[in-house]
């Protein structure tokens, strides 16, 4: 697996804040997010739509779309700070040290360039190879991602590939310069259900073989359970819980995670959803004081309405919930969404 001789994490994210200045004040879309990814590790990131998963990923690859910006915190890759690098320096990191895979393979590839040309240009941008060496490498990569007839297919254009095949090409593109980390933002959401599992399995196998770490953003708890080593659960721009995947899935400590895990349709059990979370995640402009989850939380107490919990040790995971603090949640208060 990973060739890490020391214990230094590959990626360190510390107190990351992402802001959007808008006419009606600044929106804080990612608020005080911290986590590490070890070399070769797969970190799953889950959470409802709008939780800030993609923004966190984009901040790491340095491609936040303006007016969004990193307003605080630090991101370090292999010990080197990358969140404040000049554009040109960060460009050399992207593709070479950090690869990215986006949601829609149908639109990720330039329709006017053959896949070979896109591979070769990426390889040559980052590695000192001649055109023919780069082409050889590109063919090898296409074989590796399971494209039959790679020698011939390399000269084909994106529209000549199916969706699943295109996502394989995208994976080859993300891996072609040998990055240490891949940020994969919902890499299978746009694909046919029948090929999602294949693509995830491929991504997992390749990253294991290459010792590449992955930040895997997905809505699919099943994928996380099968693929990730650790999982981070995001809620309203913050991490609600983070820990080893087994513990988070089986023994969630945060009430929100428990609700999420309840909604995994497990094999054999006929979608008997054990827990369902009422209500919806608040909009960025309406995040309540105290714990952001409190309007939907059945366990909330007085303290949850006024004091914001940070991540704290909760058995084998870390959760942002006063239930795991010595002080507790304070006197109980009813759940709003149920009352209403």
């Amino acid at each position, binding site marked *: 697996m990973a060739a890490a001789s020391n214990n230094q994490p590959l990626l360190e994210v510390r107190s990351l804040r992402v802001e959007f200045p808008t006419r009606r004040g600044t929106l804080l879309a990612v608020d005080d997010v911290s986590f590490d990814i070890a070399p070769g590790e797969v970190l799953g990131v889950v959470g409802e739509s709008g939780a800030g998963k993609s923004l966190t990923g984009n901040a790491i690859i340095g491609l936040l779309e303006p007016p969004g910006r990193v307003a605080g915190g630090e991101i370090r890759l292999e010990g080197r700070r990358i969140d404040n690098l000049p554009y040109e320096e960060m460009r050399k990191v*992207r*593709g070479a040290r950090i690869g990215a895979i986006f949601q*829609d393979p149908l639109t990720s590839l330039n329709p*006017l360039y053959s896949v070979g040309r896109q591979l070769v*240009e990426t390889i040559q941008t980052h590695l000192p190879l001649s055109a023919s060496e780069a082409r050889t490498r590109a063919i090898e990569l296409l074989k590796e991602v399971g494209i039959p007839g790679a020698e011939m297919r390399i000269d084909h254009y994106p529209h000549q590939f199916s969706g699943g095949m295109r996502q394989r090409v995208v994976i080859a593109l993300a891996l072609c310069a040998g990055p240490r980390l891949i940020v994969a933002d919902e890499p299978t959401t746009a694909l046919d259900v029948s090929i999602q599992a294949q693509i995830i399995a491929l991504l997992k196998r390749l990253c294991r073989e290459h010792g590449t770490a992955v930040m895997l953003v997905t809505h699919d708890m099943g994928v996380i359970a099968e693929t990730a080593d650790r999982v981070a659960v995001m809620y309203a721009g913050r991490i609600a819980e983070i820990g080893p995947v087994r513990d988070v899935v089986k023994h969630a400590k945060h009430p929100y995670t428990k609700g999420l895990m309840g909604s995994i349709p497990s094999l054999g059990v006929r979608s008997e959803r054990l827990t369902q979370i009422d209500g919806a995640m608040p909009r960025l402009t309406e995040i309540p004081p105290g714990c952001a989850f409190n309007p939907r939380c059945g366990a909330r107490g007085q303290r949850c309405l006024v004091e914001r919990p940070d991540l704290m040790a909760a058995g084998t995971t870390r959760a942002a919930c006063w239930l795991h603090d010595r002080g507790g949640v304070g006197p109980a208060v009813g759940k709003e969404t149920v009352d209403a």
Partner: protein
Amino acid sequence: MLAFILRRLLQSIAVLLAVGVVAFSLFRYVGDPINAMVGQDTTMEERAELRTKLGLNDPAPVQFFHFIANAAQGKFGLSYRTSEPVGRLILERIPATLELSLCAAVFALFVGVPMGVYTGLYPKHWSSRLFQAVSLIGISLPTFLIGILLILVFAVWLRLLPSFGRGETVQIGWWTTNFLTWSGLKALILPSITLGLFQLTLLMRLVRSEMLEVMRTDYIKFARARGLTNRAINFGHALKNTLVPVITVTGLQLGALIAFAIVTETVFAWPGVGQLFIQSVQFSDIPVMAAYLMLIGLLFVLINLTVDLLYFVVDPRLRSQGGTARVAGH
């Protein structure tokens, strides 16, 4: 692909035939060709005889067939005004118009496209805003006014450039060119700018809006995520994806340039086919007008064919689909 080209060729021929009908009708039904050819004192019998001899009593389809057959060989009869063969008149004039239109197109392309790329990449920069504002003027001022203003500044006040005519030209075979003499080149400048300015602003605005659109696409974001250089992204991936609309518009505008050269040629006394056309309108010189019509029709068709073929060069999706998707739309 071959089927597509054949289909396009057939369509082109159909278009040319339609233009032929218009030209023929002009010939046949506007004014009386006999009147134009004979003197006041010709008798009715002589007129009737001439009419028969010229085939003017034949049924219309037969006459049309003869007209097209002659037109295909460049025979449009004699000019009513100068009594010279129309084919030769046009041939003498066409190099002037084509060279002017070519220069205007090159000017519009090589200034308009880079300006469009720039304003598309840096839409908020002050110079982009300036280009945008100036281009609005370029689009709204009529051509003749621009021509007259340029003459006023560069010919009358600064005395840098000539205000009319082609200057010295060099004869190569039947073609006369401006490109080989200093005065010929100088004479090209003002008319080319006048003629090309509108197209320039049009292209700039088109490339700008296409660029803005392309820069938002996922494949540009993914290209950034792959760490490609800005140069490769902006001038490779992005610009190439704006090319299809640019080719379409450039093609159509090239046709328009040749057709609209009429105004510019009049302002600058440029001895091209446009000027010839204006003169023939004043004299009701029907054969010349008909020939001009056919010529413009032919050029439009040729340009459109070229544009269609260029699509195939640019867009691989068309090459494999038989070219029905995008091309059919325009």
